[in-house]
């Protein structure tokens, strides 16, 4: 177990190093940050000087080393555009993204799993067929279009829900939350539906197909043959076994929820990291881009770790057999 966690952590460090290296190499080409940092009238000499000061003229390995060694100490540098420590900015934006992702994930799970179970158990019912087809529509429309249509309907025409931002947030010191105010909660509805719809469809379909497979296994047949109640068979035996693969995939999906938040955040002007990143890309704000990519990699790694640990909790074959993932 310990070995497993250690291996994961080592892998994570490697993953993050590679991610930041790749990112770094790419940044070279993304544009000249200096042009974004100064007004148009700044002279070439001043620009060159600035570039030198920022270390942009250093060889790539040197820049990379600077970045990594500082990042290791928790110093992610200063945002070129905002002149503020990136770590601090990300810290401010993280709650928004995480709350949005969390609500979306919960929405996706809470809606997706029961629908998946239902469609698996009642394969032929018209409601299942409707769920399946309608959910496909959900993944057939681009996220941004869904977001815009939702705004169009619920904000502009019905004026029920806000079209942008987080509403009123409460600052807890280290975390700002929208969960504690009515406007904060209202502001979460449209973006999290937009963000979660795709995942909900995936989870529903995944649960359905896994469930169908599990329902064909011998132990389910044997459970029925023992005269167990349907409820026990379906929810005690089948669903629990279904959860093993579902956890893995859902974990991965959670990672991509955070990544996909970029689009949702753009559409809803959600003050999260995705929006920050997109602005950073537009403004060639390298420190923010680098930090964001690192953070995403880190979140992926953490989620993977949690998923693997969950796996261990759920599956006694791993927990007790000493088998290795």
């Amino acid at each position, binding site marked *: 177990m*310990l070995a*497993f966690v*250690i291996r994961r952590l080592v892998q994570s460090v490697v993953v993050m190093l590679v991610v930041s290296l790749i990112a770094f190499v790419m940044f070279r080409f993304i544009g000249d940050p200096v042009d974004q940092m100064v007004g148009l009238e700044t002279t070439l000499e001043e620009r060159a000087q600035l570039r030198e000061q920022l270390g942009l003229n250093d060889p790539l390995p040197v820049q990379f080393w600077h970045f990594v060694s500082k990042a290791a100490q928790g110093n992610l540098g200063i945002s070129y555009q905002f002149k503020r420590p990136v770590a601090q900015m990300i810290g401010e934006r993280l709650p928004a993204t995480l709350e949005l992702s969390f609500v979306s994930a919960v929405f996706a799970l809470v809606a997706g799993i029961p629908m998946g179970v239902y469609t698996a158990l009642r394969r032929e019912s018209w409601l299942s067929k409707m769920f399946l087809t309608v959910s496909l529509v959900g993944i057939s429309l681009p996220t941004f279009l869904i977001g815009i249509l939702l705004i169009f309907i619920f904000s502009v025409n019905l004026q029920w829900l806000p079209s942008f931002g987080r509403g009123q947030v409460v600052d807890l010191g280290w975390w700002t939350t929208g969960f504690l105010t009515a406007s904060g909660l209202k502001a979460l509805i449209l973006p999290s539906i937009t963000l979660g719809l795709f995942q909900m469809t995936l989870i529903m379909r995944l649960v359905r197909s896994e469930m169908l497979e599990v329902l064909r296994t011998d132990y389910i047949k044997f459970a029925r043959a023992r005269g167990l109640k349907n409820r026990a068979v379906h929810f005690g035996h089948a669903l629990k076994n279904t959860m093993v693969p579902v956890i893995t995939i859902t974990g991965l999906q959670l990672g991509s929820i955070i990544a996909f938040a970029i689009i949702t955040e753009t559409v809803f002007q959600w003050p999260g990291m995705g929006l920050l990143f997109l602005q950073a890309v537009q403004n060639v704000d390298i420190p923010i881009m680098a930090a964001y990519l690192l953070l995403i990699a880190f979140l992926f790694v953490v989620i993977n770790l949690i998923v693997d640990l969950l796996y261990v909790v759920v599956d006694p074959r791993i927990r007790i057999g000493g088998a290795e993932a």
Partner: protein
Amino acid sequence: MTEALVSVENLSRVFDVSKPWLNRVLERDEKKFLVAVNDVTFEIRRGETFALVGESGSGKSTIAKLIVGLLNPSDGQIRFDGKSVATQSSASMRQLRSRFQMIFQDPFASLNPRWRVKDIIAEPIRTFGLNGETVRWEKRVDELLETVGLSSGDGAKFPHEFSGGQRQRIAIARALSAKPEFIVCDEPTSALDVSVQAQILNLMRDLQDEFGLTYLFISHDLSVVRHMATRIGVLYLGRLVEVAEGKTLFRDPQHPYTRMLLDSVPDLEMTGRARKMVEGEIPNPIDPPSGCAFHPRCSLANDRCRTEMPELQPYGSTEAACFAVEEGRA
């Protein structure tokens, strides 16, 4: 009938089943090895059917794969027609390869489902490019199909259009296509129904007579083995515990394990012997019992059995590895 076509000398095969390095360090675990085949020596004479029996996990398939070269031995030698297989150059290895073939257990998995039967059968011919036969391979395929009791038109079909028995015939045709002298049959009928099994067993015997084939026949079904084998080796946890002429083995089993096996087989005609209740299950091969691996299940075991490892010793035409037999306690 004394010339050895295949001889296996002190053959061992060890699988490394250790956990990853970090786990071992942290959990203070040692490297773990599974000795699937342990110091096995036997020879197969030209024209005979040598059978290996043993329970699941006793190392039968591993020996088969070692002999045909699908696995490399950890230790020991395999000689084919006097030549050591390990030391062959790749060119002569190719030569050698064409002289032995294998028939597998699962007729559903042993044929590539995406290939037409004729291509499956022809693959060895084409690969070995046997004496100009590449050109006429289609004719040869038809011949082969008929040899194994199918019709020549079947070549254009896909495997899924055949029943299990027919597929096994196709597999046999493929094995025959390179004109081998020696065929390793790893449980060729265990996936088949009895009535079909009889067909295949009969076919194999006919082919042996017709082409002078030598078989290594692997099975866990004692009655099938008895029907097919000239000589029989009994495996237990990777070791050969008894080697005997077929008839002798059944009439006069030496090793207590052999006896136990014979006892436990349900048979159509109840044997005269009173059935003894079999004890226990085959132990975990990763850490096999010390001494004679069979001692925990053996009613004749004594302290020596628990500490020393018995070697194969001749008892008449039979060889057995058992202290009880050696000491006359059996």
